[in-house]
């Protein structure tokens, strides 16, 4: 049985990939950095590698299986075991002494067998509950079963196990006295029984016995002392060491390349899942998005993933400090024009939409309670470079230069996010240019969101709908996005009242002065 890998049906993920252009605008780099940090190894490049249309679904189902069937822990265990095995194999390569190679080979083989049987047990359990739904996991399971039933694997398993048991039963006694170290072989009577001095030490620390972790040098290389000890010991147990050397000669390069690849590729799913678990503990939601052609976008409880990451250390369970929005595009709607007060959560909302599309395209879960959307070819973003020293025509020119390639035909059916375009141009010009941009993307069958302070753009096309960042009853930013329009006059009055600066209030506060 063939196994194309768990990540992608067609492409090799090791192809050269560069960070997509929209990463910085959508703060996705910040998310990936956190994931990297939590995982402890660099997994960035996996996130630069988008799935094609078919693989997107392939990945999403694998992702779903991992979560639903509780495969995260067993897959991590498999991966760690495999990494240990690979390390053993590297040490084996580097070893100079043939005896040393032989012992590494035993460890490599037994570790490999343990990794595979652990994986098989986990997949069997999931399968028996009907939880292996994805094509990726099912193929992996089939491939694994076939492989493990093979004769080559069976021989490896039996031989290596026998040698490991023998290895574990070897005990060396060393007596250091009078400037010499005597070496003898001893028989293992009862592995659980403590040596006399260890027994004596327990008197002093009854509750928390420690073990003497190898007091020999920490490196994997043998010290001269160890080599000297072994040189004497090997002569006492020649049969075992001869058998081990024979094993080493007959079993080389037995690790199957599919499992090596799997070990690497799993870090994509597992690193994301690990981070997700951490956020879920803080009360944040994730869901697997549904991709359907007839829906454009419908999301419930959508929030800015990057913002949640940056607040991670201060977030507590059940806090509502990450604002979530419910949101949908009607079928005749293609573009939203988002207006509202400064610092009102406009950019955050636009980013959360972009992230929704990105993580869906990656085949991963998204930061929302539920989400439906259709397939987008690509993501295009244009964020204004704030606090630029350049003003006037200089900045406008820079914006247009960046905009031009986005408007090429190859990007149709993309998701487009535009944030504050043409702020340095006169309103009249900006409205005309903005309208043109919107009409262009609509014609290209793109969907998107356009954040601006120009209300007039709401009228740019019949496929455009105006939406607003809302204020609360005190006139403060609520960070909620709504299709309602804000009555700015009323908000202003609220704010005045709150600060007790209304006419009547001021009369009363100042009343004492006028007698």
């Amino acid at each position, binding site marked *: 049985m063939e196994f194309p890998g768990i990540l992608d049906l067609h492409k090799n993920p090791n192809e050269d990939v560069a960070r997509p252009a929209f990463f910085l605008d959508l703060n996705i780099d910040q998310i990936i950095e956190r994931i990297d940090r939590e995982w402890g190894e660099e997994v960035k490049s996996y996130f630069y590698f988008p799935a094609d249309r078919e693989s997107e679904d392939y990945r999403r189902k694998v992702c779903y299986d991992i979560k639903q069937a509780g495969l995260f822990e067993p897959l991590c265990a498999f991966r760690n075991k495999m990494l240990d095995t690979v390390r053993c194999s590297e040490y084996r390569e580097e070893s100079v002494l043939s005896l040393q190679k032989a012992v590494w080979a035993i460890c490599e083989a037994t570790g490999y067998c343990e990794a595979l049987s652990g994986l098989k047990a986990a997949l069997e359990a999931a399968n028996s509950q009907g939880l292996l739904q994805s094509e990726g996991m099912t193929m992996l399971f089939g491939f694994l079963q076939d492989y493990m039933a093979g004769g080559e694997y069976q021989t490896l398993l039996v031989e290596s196990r026998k040698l490991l048991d023998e290895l574990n039963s070897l005990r060396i006694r060393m007596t250091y006295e009078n400037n010499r170290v005597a070496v003898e072989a001893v028989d293992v009577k009862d592995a659980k029984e403590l040596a006399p001095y260890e027994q004596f030490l327990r008197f002093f620390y009854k509750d928390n016995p420690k073990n003497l972790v*190898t007091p*020999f040098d920490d490196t994997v290389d*043998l010290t001269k002392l160890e080599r000297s000890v072994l040189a004497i010991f090997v002569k006492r147990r020649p049969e075992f060491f001869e058998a081990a050397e024979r094993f080493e000669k007959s079993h080389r390069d037995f690790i199957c390349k599919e499992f090596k690849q799997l070990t690497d590729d799993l870090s994509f799913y597992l690193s994301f899942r690990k981070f997700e678990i951490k956020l879920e503990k803080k009360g944040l939601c994730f869901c697997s998005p549904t991709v359907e052609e007839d829906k454009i976008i419908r999301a419930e409880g959508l929030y800015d993933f990057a913002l949640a990451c940056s607040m991670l250390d201060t977030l507590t369970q059940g806090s509502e400090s990450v604002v979530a929005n419910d949101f949908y595009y009607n079928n005749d709607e293609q573009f939203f024009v988002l207006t509202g007060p400064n610092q009102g959560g406009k950019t955050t909302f636009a980013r959360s939409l972009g992230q929704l599309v990105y993580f869906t395209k990656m085949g991963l879960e998204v930061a929302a309670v539920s989400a439906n959307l259709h397939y987008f070819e690509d993501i295009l973003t244009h964020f204004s470079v704030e606090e630029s020293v350049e003003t006037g025509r200089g900045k406008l020119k820079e914006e247009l230069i960046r905009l031009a390639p986005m408007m090429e035909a190859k990007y149709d059916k993309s998701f487009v996010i535009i944030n504050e375009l043409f702020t340095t141009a006169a309103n009249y010009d900006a409205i005309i240019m903005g309208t043109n941009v919107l009409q262009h993307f609509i014609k290209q069958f793109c969907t998107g969101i356009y954040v601006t302070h120009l209300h007039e753009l709401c009228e740019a096309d019949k496929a455009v709908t105006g939406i607003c960042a809302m204020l609360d009853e005190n006139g403060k930013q609520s960070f909620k996005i709504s299709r309602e329009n804000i009555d700015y006059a009323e908000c202003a009055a609220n704010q005045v009242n709150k600060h007790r600066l209304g006419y009547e209030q001021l009369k009363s506060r100042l009343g004492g002065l006028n007698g």
Partner: protein
Amino acid sequence: MRVRLLYSDHEWVGIDKYRDTNNIIQDLGLKTLFTMASKDVLKEDGAVKKVLDADDFIRDVVSKVMMVPLENEEEIYYRQGIVQDCLNNEDFIEGLYRIATDMSIQWDKLGRKDNENKARSNDVSWLMSRIRIIRLFVNSLSKLKHFFASYQGTFSSEGIAGFVKHLLEDFSLEDEKKYIELLESVDFYVSEGLMADDERIVCKPRIVLECGIAGGLKLTDVQLSEIETLHQKYRNPNSTLNKLREYVDNHTATDSIILSGDVMLEKQVAELVYRIMRYIVTYLEPFYEDCAAFFDQLRIQTAFYRGAVNLKHHAERFQLHICMPKVCGQEQLHYDTLKEFVMCIEQRITAIGNTCDIDDKLLVVITGANQGGKSTFLRSLGIAQVMMQCGFFVVAKKFEAGIFPQIFTHFTRREDSAMNSGRLDEELSRMSQIIDSITPGSLVLLNESFATTTEKEGSNIAYDIIRALHEAGIKIITVTHLLSFAQRLYSETASANENKAWNNGVAFFCAERLPDGRRTYKMVQSVPELTSFGLDLYNEIIGG
């Protein structure tokens, strides 16, 4: 292991000082007491010959422990029992304090400070120092047990009896033997060798360990079978006989690794031994931590009682009566021949004592002649209160008072007295700080408060503040020259609980003045008078 000589249920931690500690020390002159507690007197035939130099450690401890009040009767009586035992057996507390102090000095010499830090890797000197410190702990504990043996059955206090009993239990004969056995087994690591019968004896290790084999042939899963220190006669390695013996040994042993001459192997074995020693020391970690805390506490806690003994010696110098105070309700205050200890020491006098039983009075107002002993009286009450609340004796024939979790002093200090527009503001701000930190059941000592403004205004301010505090159930003892305030108070208390003010009881005191105008420096209960008899003083100094 536990000391628990200061509290029956925990060791000294030094938190929960009086919130007003600095003012209490300054206003009541307690620094003198701290110093005196740290100076013993040398007596000869019952007479004081010499005051010895101060023990800074005792001074430091007394100054801290005195400022953390005990919270209830049981705690006070617990300490009083120990103080009484120590006063009866001065040798005991001196001996105990000396053991604790000597031990601490040796501990410092063994590198206590550096050893508290974590060891660096392959830090042989840290390890040697740690083993030696543990040896010092074991020896000191044995010494303590030995010391107690000669005092068996001498003590009546729960505190000392409990301390001795627990030490004997927590470091039993079996424990002692085991620790000594362990230290002997690793003695080779710290021993410098010794001489016996004119022959040099060297300490050599014998270590037996077992191990298995892991990946890459690394030795693993090590267990210690035997560790021993062998005492051998020193042999000159360069003598012909030894060289011959070594040659024969090296060529007959096929199952041994010969270390001599191989620098690399010798170094690796030394490292192996170091790691084994580190491993053994980790087993002694709880014992080390326990002992370190125990000896720390022992020195602190015995220093406190050592201070009590010293203070008693100073009371004896000036023929002052001392007694163990008793606890009663906050509205009671009974005293007989109560004296101001600090003044007696500083001025080397016996002084006049005050005697009175005040019942059901939460407010005590003291008025009267200048230079009549009002402030001295107020301080004597404050000092006795602080001494009682730390478990000490007090300088009186009898003293009974309530327990006050917080004490605040608001004394107009001499340097503050100058009429100065900014001063009242400072006084009020200080008062406001007191109000901020006051807790239910506090005691406030006011001495000439609000003297920095006119009599009328000062009276009004004092009236409002004192009334509010009084109604809040705060005990106040105030010395005041604000006579209109005192008069107003008196007339309100006299007119039978009109608006229910002052119903927590008010007592009025005056400096006693004999019919011929002489002052006795005693405080007696009396109606406040309109004059502070400044004229008396004027007449005395300037002349009539």
